[in-house]
């Protein structure tokens, strides 16, 4: 079934983190600015961003120095607004 790309795919913001070994991508079209991810980040690496999300509230952006690409933020996001991609060969992640 042919489907149009959803709006939220546009304007995704990707940041290299963890010494370039991973990419943090935020989808402002999905982020509602709840902040659950910020609270859960063990490195306190997430800051509020100037970029606004789908409800006009701030999204988050990672501090590339602190982010270890541990994926906790990805997991706790109720909206799947964060994707962490590891650039190295995918190791066993689970």
């Amino acid at each position: 079934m042919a489907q149009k790309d959803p709006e939220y795919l546009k304007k995704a913001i990707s940041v290299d983190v963890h010494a370039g070994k991973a990419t943090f991508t935020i989808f402002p079209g999905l982020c509602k600015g709840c902040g659950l991810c910020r609270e859960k980040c063990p490195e306190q690496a997430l800051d509020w961003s100037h970029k606004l999300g789908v409800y006009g509230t701030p999204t988050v952006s990672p501090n590339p120095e602190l982010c270890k690409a541990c994926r906790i933020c990805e997991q706790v996001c109720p909206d799947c607004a964060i994707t962490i991609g590891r650039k190295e060969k995918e190791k066993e992640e689970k």
Partner: protein
Amino acid sequence: MEAKQILPKMPKSWNPASKPHKFCPGCGHGLVLKALGQVIDELNIQDRVVFGCDIGCSLLSWDFFNVDTVQTHHGRTTPVIVGIKRANPELITIAYMGDGGGYAIGSQHLVNAANRNDNITAILVNNTVYAMTGGQMAPTTMPDQKTETTPYGRDIKETGYPMLGPEMVAAIAHEGAYVARGSIAKFRQLKTFIKKAIENQMAGRGFSFVEALSTCPTNWRTNAEKTWDFVENIMPQYFPIGEYKVPGGKEE
């Protein structure tokens, strides 16, 4: 040129056309439904699942998945799903509801489906309030908790105690039933519980029930920090997490 477009890690069974979903910022429904979506993907059952959602915030999931879905009345998702399963046992049927729908207006359906050992999976999201209607007291509101209808805190002498759903269901359910309480604060465990609940149905063993402790920052009026504190530290004081009934008898 970019090498490859980065995509959100949504479960394949989610319906991308209905995203961002309709739940509030910080609402736990998204996490319960993420766990469920991942389970549907892992079990490869997207073509056999029928999902029913209740009234209350759970109704907002009526087009959440790319699975056949029916949105029912408040409290009535359990009987609709029971009716579907009885008429076509090939389907994998999931009833999705909140604490009001499951423990108050629809409690007779939950009790009787459990007692009949109907071969369905019920997932009940407990956020301690009637959220869709604006934050009134729910069967699961905790002692002294403030809601719109208990503005001075829930007085258990007046209004009774919070309903312990899995404990009740486990007490009346029979051999073959699966009963657990998970929390969105323990995502992987919650996902495991949901997976076991659906596998239990697929094995034809009978009624499977998972309560998920969840968040409602909108009605709790909490920021992210307080939201986590409430679901992680306060709710489990009344609602212990774990498996309450496992076929074969092993319980956590």
